């Protein structure tokens, strides 16, 4: 098999999407113009409520009672199904996973695998309620039930509603990809098709849409391309009879686009979060997230799940939507490495975290700990208390906590009674008198207090290098070492920090700031 050049594809798509977001207002105009030129109707919805009103109005005008839906995160975002339900329109999800969670009255737990949290036994129970008799719980039988049940909805639906994987401005075209083929049925059998699509999905050209096709399935499901890839340009038409164009032959007579803003323009104005508008909703950031793998999308995210869910939810559903959920991010940055459009997810989550903390505050233990930890004198004091408390439970540099969830999880590192900065002199005393390079070691709070022997090794290990070098070069070319006064995360009282800095740079054998050579 020929290997693909992932980096090149990713850089290419990142550049294309960045350019599209930069040019978004013009692209919205162009798409509207081109789509209307081929007979579609285009509406713009500033927010969820307006989008819901527009779709409900079309349903009313068409006297629609039954709607089939193809999987769409944009309609999940605005809560369209519930809204239509209130207006007496029954909306049936036709993507297998979406139908399962609709039957369970839940919300998707993954961007592209919405029912990933359900077992086949659970699915069999849900389906049994639909058909009124027990259903075998093997996958083939379950799919057969869905196929038979959903077919009647496709045939009887008044309207088909979809999202969109991309909109192509130059031709007014909708790109839709699925593996099940449900979007093809939903967009060809019913007489009316409505596509609800976020404005960030607009790209200038067909070529740009193909760049998305190349990476969407690869990043989402590991396929080269999805089973079904549709390009829809205007309603169904024919000129077979006397070359006169007739709209609506086998497919819909009407095609409506609802272009959804709902916070996207505001995101575009934000220099950092603008990058997140590149998202093509592949779900790769969920798949690699260690925390998501444990807790799932109902905890990790809001309507949009996974890393991107933590990033975009505040813009679509308010800061509160993920104020607690953001705490599930470990900060491991795995998401950054797989995103096909290079969204700096990890750092954007950090920004969401900062806003969430402003809103809900920190837990009491965390507040106390951080406050103490940010003032150097306080660290010495707290470390002293802990060193006494840990006494009875200490062994081999570890403390076995006798109670609580942490006891089962792990033993804690014991607080050292001889932090690394007490040993600075040991490292610096053998420094050469006129070094070639001066190197400082910033020990980090964990190394300094909890595993000073490792930091000592780090410093000594590099000192060893300097000895070897001395044998070869002249003594004056040796590097000199020091242990940097670790600037603990700032202090509410700046004065105390300065006092501490002065103290640590004074004659005390602690935290020698700068070379003593």
């Amino acid at each position, binding site marked *: 098999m020929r290997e693909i050049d992932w980096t090149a594809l990713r850089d290419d798509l990142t550049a294309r999407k960045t350019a599209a977001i930069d040019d978004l207002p013009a692209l919205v105009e162009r798409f509207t113009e081109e789509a209307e030129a081929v007979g579609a109707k285009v509406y713009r919805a500033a927010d969820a409520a307006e989008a819901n009103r527009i779709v409900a109005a079309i349903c009313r005008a068409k006297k629609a009672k039954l709607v089939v839906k193809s999987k769409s995160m944009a309609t999940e975002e605005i809560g369209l199904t519930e809204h239509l339900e209130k207006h007496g329109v029954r909306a049936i999800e036709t993507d297998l996973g979406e139908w399962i969670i609709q039957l369970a009255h839940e919300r998707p737990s993954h961007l592209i695998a919405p029912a990933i949290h359900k077992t086949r036994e659970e699915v069999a129970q849900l389906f049994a309620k639909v058909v009124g008799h027990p259903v075998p719980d093997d996958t083939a039988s379950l799919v057969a039930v869905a196929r038979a049940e959903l077919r009647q909805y496709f045939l009887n639906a008044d309207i088909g509603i979809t999202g969109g994987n991309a909109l192509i401005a130059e031709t007014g075209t909708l790109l839709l990809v699925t593996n099940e083929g449900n979007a093809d049925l939903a967009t060809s059998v019913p007489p009316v098709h409505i596509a609800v699509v976020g404005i960030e999905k607009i790209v200038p050209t067909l070529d740009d849409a193909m760049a998305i096709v190349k990476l969407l399935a690869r990043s989402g499901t590991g396929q080269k391309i999805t089973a079904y890839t549709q390009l829809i340009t205007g309603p169904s038409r024919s000129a077979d009879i006397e070359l006169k164009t007739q709209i609506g032959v086998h497919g819909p007579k009407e095609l409506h686009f609802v272009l959804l803003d709902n916070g996207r323009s505001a995101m575009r104005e934000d220099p950092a979060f603008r990058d997140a508008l590149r998202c093509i909703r592949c779900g790769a950031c969920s798949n690699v997230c260690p925390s998501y793998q444990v807790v799932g999308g109902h905890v990790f995210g809001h309507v949009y799940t996974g890393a991107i869910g933590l990033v975009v939810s505040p813009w679509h559903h308010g800061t509160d939507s993920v104020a607690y959920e953001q705490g599930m991010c470990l900060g491991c940055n795995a998401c950054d490495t797989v995103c096909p459009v290079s969204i700096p997810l990890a750092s954007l989550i950090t920004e969401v975290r900062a806003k969430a903390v402003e809103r809900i505050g920190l837990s009491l233990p965390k507040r106390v700990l951080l406050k103490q930890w940010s003032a150097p004198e306080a660290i010495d004091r707290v470390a002293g208390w802990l060193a006494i408390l840990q006494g009875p439970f200490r062994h081999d540099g570890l403390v076995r906590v006798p109670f609580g969830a942490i006891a089962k999880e792990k033993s804690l590192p014991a607080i050292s009674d001889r932090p690394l900065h007490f040993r600075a002199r040991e490292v610096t005393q053998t420094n050469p008198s006129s070094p070639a390079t001066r190197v400082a070691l910033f020990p980090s709070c964990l190394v300094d207090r909890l595993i000073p022997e490792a930091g000592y090794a780090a410093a*000594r290990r*590099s000192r060893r290098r300097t000895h070897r070098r001395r044998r070869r070069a002249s003594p004056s070319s040796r590097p000199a070492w020091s242990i940097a006064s670790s600037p603990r995360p700032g202090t509410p009282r700046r004065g105390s920090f300065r006092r501490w800095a002065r103290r640590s740079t004074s004659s005390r054998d602690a935290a020698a700031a700068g070379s003593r050579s």
Partner: protein
Amino acid sequence: MAKDAITALERVRADRIVIPSSSCAITITQDYARLLAGDDEWRERALGLAERITPFTRFAAELARERATRGRPLGIRATYHDACQSANVLGVHDEPRALLRDVAGVELVEMAESSVCCGFGGTFSFEYPEVATRILDRKLANIAATGADVVIMDNPGCLTHLRGGIDARRGTTRVRLLAEVLWESLSPEA
């Protein structure tokens, strides 16, 4: 907070500042500049400081390469855990393996999912112990599957988490920081 740290580190009279903790190195070299993006003067100072900072593993690899360093072979079988931020942000992968193999004569056995987070995540492991435990269990199973006696890494956060997790489960695998292993191989006295 960042400004205080920058001021203090600027005062350090050294050409380079080596940090044996990837998270700290990343915070200072990348997050500070982003945090202070709105303030040109401070942003410049953050970037200036960042130029002097090197994560320990990079620094050690550089020195070993320049001087073709060889230590005492330790004769241990070990597996290497890629601390998630070292791997995902700094892109460190080959350097520590080369150091262990070439300098310290360590026999390395690769574990599955070596760059997947161990579940520490700073305060995460204390706030959500149930989640952290399950992530840790998976990591420990991957380590155990290698049959190695020692697991080595370059980030102190992972070290405390893995060492503590193995102790709570009464395991015997030893957990060492890359620097410790290298120093053991290079220290003059056995």
